[in-house]
């Protein structure tokens, strides 16, 4: 316990490191504030979509289904009439007032149609799934949700903040020459190893909480996110999720997942530190291990299951296109993460000081 305190001390006493972490935090905030908006939904008009969603807000009832079908018919018919009305008008079969009224309606339909298509698609998705959902889906304005969740990716500034502080955990003992005294002390092996791992995790918990806290707060302010209590399956991307989760539960589990993932990364870094003993090697290895699967994903989409760059973003969980979505890859990923971390930890332990010298 006392050793943990000393190891934390060693890890955090360096002032340069603090400045680096602070800078990374500033970068993170700036990224949150200035990531480019929109662009992805160019054919959809956000405010029209929002008005539809507010109109149909909540579960799909028979009444709402009728309204949606009626709106669909209205829009399609209005659009279909365009040339016919024009001919009639020029032929003098209808008067200017009627034509004007029609034109107003036409413009309205033209403006709404591409957006309504998205609404109608969603409606049909609700219908098609029928009773197979674990909870009845709801209409709510979900464009920002989609954007928010899809925008999640491994938190690079946080990754770096972990790297600059944790990578030296063992490496600095070897570079400063302190390891000789450490390794020749009674508690310098086993206990020190676990104390260093624990210190790294304590730091990782704190810094991840800080980064993710900021991430959460700023994003919730930046996006329009209604429907916290609606079931997750209301969004098409999550049609495969077998559990009755609300958006709120999902939101928290995504952050929990991202958080755990970062602890996993911290374990990876601290073990690499014990295994490789040299800063440069550790940085390269970490970067490689994080980047390589993403590069693979570029080559073939199959590898997306391996890509913890995306995984760490948290969005993968339950996404329908994911091979494991049926059983909830969130759970599998976490189990995998824990097992892998334990494996790494013991490997690091015995590489730092061989088994016969247990302490």
């Amino acid at each position: 316990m006392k050793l943990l305190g000393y190891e934390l001390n060693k890890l955090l006493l360096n002032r340069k490191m603090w400045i680096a972490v602070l800078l990374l935090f500033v970068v993170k905030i700036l990224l949150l504030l200035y990531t480019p908006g929109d662009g992805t939904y160019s054919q959809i008009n956000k405010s029209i979509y929002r008005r539809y969603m507010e109109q149909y807000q909540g579960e799909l009832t028979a009444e709402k289904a009728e309204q949606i079908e009626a709106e669909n018919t209205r829009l399609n018919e209005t659009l279909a009439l365009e040339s016919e009305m024009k001919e009639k008008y020029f032929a003098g079969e209808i008067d200017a007032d009627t034509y004007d009224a029609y034109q107003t309606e036409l413009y309205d339909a033209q403006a709404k149609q591409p957006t309504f298509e998205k609404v109608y698609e969603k409606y049909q998705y609700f219908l098609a799934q029928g009773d197979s959902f674990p909870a009845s889906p709801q209409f709510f304005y979900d464009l920002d949700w989609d954007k928010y969740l899809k925008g999640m990716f491994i938190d690079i500034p946080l990754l770096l903040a972990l790297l600059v502080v944790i990578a030296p955990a063992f490496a600095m003992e070897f570079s400063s020459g302190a390891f000789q005294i450490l390794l020749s002390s009674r508690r310098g092996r086993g206990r020190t190893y676990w104390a260093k791992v624990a210190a790294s995790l304590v730091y990782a918990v704190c810094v991840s909480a800080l980064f993710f806290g900021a991430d959460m707060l700023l994003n919730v302010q930046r996006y329009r996110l209604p429907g916290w209590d609606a079931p997750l399956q209301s969004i098409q991307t999550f049609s495969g999720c077998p559990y009755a989760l609300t958006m709120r539960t999902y939101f928290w589990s995504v952050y929990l997942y991202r958080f755990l993932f970062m602890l996993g990364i911290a374990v990876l870094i601290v073990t690499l530190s014990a295994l490789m003993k040299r800063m440069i090697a550790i940085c390269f290895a970490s970067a490689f291990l994080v980047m390589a699967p993403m590069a693979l994903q570029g080559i073939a989409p199959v590898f997306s299951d391996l890509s913890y760059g995306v995984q760490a973003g948290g969005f993968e969980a339950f996404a329908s296109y994911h091979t494991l979505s049926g059983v909830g890859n969130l759970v599998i990923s976490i189990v995998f993460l824990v097992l892998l971390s334990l494996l790494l930890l013991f490997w690091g332990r015995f590489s730092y000081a061989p088994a016969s010298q247990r302490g």
Partner: protein
Amino acid sequence: MELKFDNVCKNYGKKRALVDFSATLTEGVYALLGPNGAGKSTLMNMTADILRPTAGTITYNGESIYKLGDKFRAVLGFLPQSAGLYNSFSARSLLRYYGCLKGMDDKKAIEARIDELLELVNLTADASRKAGQYSGGMRQRLGIAVALLNDPKVLILDEPTAGLDPKERIRFRNIISKISFDRIVILATHIVSDVEYIAKDVLLLRQGQLIRDTDVSSLLAEMEGKVWDIKVLAAEVPSFMQKYKISNITKVSETEEEAEATNAENGLTALRVLSDERPSETATPVPASLEDVYLYYFGEVGI
């Protein structure tokens, strides 16, 4: 108490850093002497379990130190050749940390021990300064305090006096001689005078081979008739240096007779020559010092 080395070898790739080293150490100070690269640090690092031997065994009271593991480390104190200290720790908190690391949990006992050691290595006044602000010699002394912290039964000191001023060297020598009666101290050094009066045995290493393992007085006795004082003319010095190992050169303040015998520009120089035979008629045999022994074994003619 017995620390036994049995045919210990260490190879770094093809390089043989230590070859078939065998010795049995009991309580007392063992001086490890040898030129740079002789394998002293290699031997010490293996004894501290920083390195593993390529072959051979090291046993403490009959059990392999590698099997003993933490039990051996509990009685071990080690000062590496280039010890790194945590620069942002003060001397006192550094010692507290190492106390914790060495398994000393009694808070009062450790504080008392720290005070005692700080006094012993003369760092009491600087105890609250950061180790990073220490001078080389101060860091070395702090390292010595760390090695002594757990009152080790086996104390390994790799060039402990490197960088110490003469006063501190004497202080160090006194500390070691005071504590060495009930523990094994292995001490590597290039400053032969550090160990001349405190070493029980001297181990001479050359290119990884143990060439002598004996006590100081017999080493000195063996040198009888091999150390000579000669006074020669300054002009003759180079030719002597070509022929013999010279352990010392001093200018002589001439007596009147000698001044008559030589001319004024060509003053007399006293040489301390190491040679199995009398180097010249005028040479007189003198008692050897450990430094002469060192040079006899490791010195080269013509330097």
